[in-house]
C-alpha cells in the first residue's frame, strides 16, 4: 500500500468514524441517564435523513451541488437546524410515550418498546417514501477537494469531520458547563439523590433525549450530504455499529463514544483495504469482544465500585 492510499484511507476512516460517533453519542447519553439501550435510536437517525431529504429535495427543490458559498452555508444551516430540532422533538415524543411510563418496569420492558418503536419508525418511513433507496441531494460537490501528497481529500470529508467534532465539543461543553448539563450528570449518577437536590428528572431526561436525537438528526443530514442517498433500513445497521462504538468507548461516556466511533471507522476501513470487507462485521465484533474481555468497562469507562 502506498502512502497516497494510506492517507486517503485515513481520511475515509475519520469520515466514517465521525458519522458513527454522532450516532453513538445519542446511545451513550441515553444509556448513561436511564440505563436503556435505545434500539430505536438508529431509526431516529434514519428518519433524520428522510426529514432532511424532504426539506432539501421536496421543499427547497434542490437537486445537486450549490456553488454559491453564501447560499450553501445558508441552506446547510437551515437543514441542520431543521433536522436536529425535528428529530429532537421526535426523540422527546418517543421518550414520553414509549419509555417514561416504563421507567420503573423491569429493564427488559423498555427494551422491547424500543424495538417496537424501531419497527414503527421504519414502517412509517416505508409507507411515506416507499421501500426503496432514494436519492438525496449532495449540496457540497463531492468531487471537489484538495491534494495532500498523492491523496485526494474531499471538502465533504473535511466538512463531515468538522461537523462531528464541533458537535462533540459542543456537547461536552454543554454537559460540563451548564446547569442542565450538571443536572444530567447528577441524574445519571443517582436519580433519587438528584431528585432530592431539586433536579427535575422528567425535564432532564427529556432534554437528554432531545439532544441525543438531535445529534442523530445531524447524522441523518450528513448521511444525505455524504452518501447522497437514504434508505429505510440504514438505521438498523448504522445503529448497531454506533451502539458497538458506544460500548467500545465505555458506555455512558461521551468522549468514549466519540473515540469508539472513530475506532470502528478505522477497523472497517482497514478491513476493506485489506480485502476483508465481507468479514468486517465479524472483525469489528471480535475486537469488541476481546476489548470487553480484557477491559470490561470499555476503553474509557470507569469501573463501577461495587457496594458491599
Amino acid at each position: 500500500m502506498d502512502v497516497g492510499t494510506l492517507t486517503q484511507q485515513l481520511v475515509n476512516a475519520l469520515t466514517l468514524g465521525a458519522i458513527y460517533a454522532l450516532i453513538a453519542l445519542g446511545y451513550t447519553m441515553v444509556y448513561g441517564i436511564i440505563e436503556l439501550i435505545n434500539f430505536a435510536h438508529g431509526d431516529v437517525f434514519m428518519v433524520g435523513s428522510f426529514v432532511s431529504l424532504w426539506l432539501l429535495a421536496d421543499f427547497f427543490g434542490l437537486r445537486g451541488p450549490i456553488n454559491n458559498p453564501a447560499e450553501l452555508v445558508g441552506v446547510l444551516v437551515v437543514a441542520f437546524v431543521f433536522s436536529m430540532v425535528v428529530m429532537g422533538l421526535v426523540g422527546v415524543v418517543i421518550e414520553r410515550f414509549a419509555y417514561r411510563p416504563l421507567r420503573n418496569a423491569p429493564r427488559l420492558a423498555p427494551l422491547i418498546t424500543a424495538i417496537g418503536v424501531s419497527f414503527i419508525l421504519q414502517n412509517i418511513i416505508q409507507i411515506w417514501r416507499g421501500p426503496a433507496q432514494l436519492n438525496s441531494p449532495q449540496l457540497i460537490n463531492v468531487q471537489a477537494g484538495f491534494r495532500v501528497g498523492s491523496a485526494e481529500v474531499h471538502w465533504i470529508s473535511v466538512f463531515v469531520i468538522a461537523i462531528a467534532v464541533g458537535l462533540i465539543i459542543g456537547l461536552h461543553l454543554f454537559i460540563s458547563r451548564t446547569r442542565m448539563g450538571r443536572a444530567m450528570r447528577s441524574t445519571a449518577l443517582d436519580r433519587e439523590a438528584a431528585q432530592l437536590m431539586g433536579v427535575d428528572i422528567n425535564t432532564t431526561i427529556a432534554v437528554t433525549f432531545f439532544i441525543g436525537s438531535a445529534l442523530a438528526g445531524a447524522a441523518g443530514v450528513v448521511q444525505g450530504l455524504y452518501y447522497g442517498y437514504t434508505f429505510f433500513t440504514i438505521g438498523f445497521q448504522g445503529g448497531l455499529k454506533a451502539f458497538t462504538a458506544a460500548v467500545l468507548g465505555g458506555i455512558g461516556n461521551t468522549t468514549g463514544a466519540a473515540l469508539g466511533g472513530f475506532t470502528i471507522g478505522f477497523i472497517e476501513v482497514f478491513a476493506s483495504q485489506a480485502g476483508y470487507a465481507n468479514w468486517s462485521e465479524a472483525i469489528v465484533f471480535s475486537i469488541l469482544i476481546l476489548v470487553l474481555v480484557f477491559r470490561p468497562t470499555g476503553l474509557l469507562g470507569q469501573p463501577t465500585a461495587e457496594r458491599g
Partner: protein
Amino acid sequence: MRRLWRSVLFLGRDSRLRAWLKPWTDSLNTFSKGHQSLSVVLGMAVVTTVLPFIILFPPFAGFATQGDWVQGFASAGIFVLLALGLNVVVGLAGLLDLGYAAFFAIGAYSYAYGASPFAGTHFPFWPLLLVGAMVAALFGILLGAPTLRLRGDYLAIVTLGFGEIVPVVFRNADTYTNGTNGISGMYRPALPVTGTFLGLNPVPYYITVAVLVALAMVFLYRIQDSRLGRAWMAVREDELAAASMGINTVTTKLLAFAIGASTAGLAGVFYASKVTIISPDSFGFTVSFTILAMVVLGGMGNVWGVAAGAFVVYEIQSELLKQMNGFVEHLNLPPINLGVTTIDLAKVDFLQYQFLLYGLALVGMMLLRPEGLFPNRRRRAELHDVDDAEAANQELVEA
C-alpha cells in the same frame, strides 16, 4: 383503564371469569404442584390435541385451512423451543442475550453436516438432535467462559456481537458452509412406523415438536426446582449476595448459557430437518429480537407463559398479519366515512402495515402489561409494589 385492559386480557386477578373458574384452577394447581412433570405432559398433550380442532371454528377458520394451521403450528413449535431456551438465560438467570439466534444457527448447521447431500452424510435425525444440542451448548460455553464475568449490558453487547459474527462466518466460509447459497436438500427425519416424514404432511413434525417442547418444559421445570434453579434465581436477585452464599456465579451463569444454547441447538436441528434448506440469512438479528420479544411478552421466568407468548407472537407474525387482507375483505365492513376522506378497510393493503402493527403491538403490550401476558408470580411482585407483592405472597401460600 388499566383495570379494563386486565379484564379484556381476562388474566387479571380481578376478573369475574377467573373467580368463576377458581375451584377448578385451584384443584388443577394442587394437582400440578404434586405431579409437575405429569401435568406438563398432560397439558401439552391436551394442547396438542385440541389446537388442530379449535382452528376449525371461526374466526380462525377464516384465515386458513386446518392443514395450513398445523403446518404453522409445527413451525411455531420451533420458536416455542427457542423461547423456552432463551427464558433460561433471560428469565431465570437474568442475563440479557441479544444474539441467541447464533445458537439456533449452530444447531441447524450441525444437522446439515450430519444429514445432507452437501456433507455427503446421512445420520438418522434422532441422535443428531442430541448432537446439535451438544454442539450448541459447547459454543455457549466457549462464548460464555471468557465473557460471563462482564456486567449485564456488556454481556448483552457481546452476545449481540456473537450473533452477528456467526452468520458472517457461515456466509463467508464457502468451502465449509456453501456460503450464501446455504445448504439445501437436507434429509427429513424418519421413524420406523411412519417412514420418512413428508414436507406436505405437517402432522409428524407437529407431533415431534410437541414432544420436544413437552420434554424441554419438563426438564426446565425440574431444573428450576433444583439447586441450579435456585442458584439462577439467587444470581438474578442479588449476584453479590449469591456469591457470598457459596454460589459460583460464573459457573452458574455458564450453565444457564449452555442449557439455553442447547435448547436453541435442538430447535435448530428440528428447523433444518423441517425446512430442508438453511442459509446464513435465516439467523440474523431480527430472529434474536423476535425470540426476545416472545420471552418478554409471554412473561419472563414462567415456562408456560413464555411458551404461550412465543406461540402467540409467531401466529401474529406469520398468520394473522399475513392473512389480514383476506380476513378484512371477508368481514365486508362498510367504508368508514371520515368527512375529508373515506377509508375502505377492504381495500387497505395490510401487508404494507405489517411492521407498524407489529411494532404497535409490542409497544402497547409493554405499556399495558410490562410483566408480560402470563407473568411469573415473583416477577410480578418485583414490578408492582407492596400491595401486589402481598397478594402474590397470598397466592403462593394458597398454591
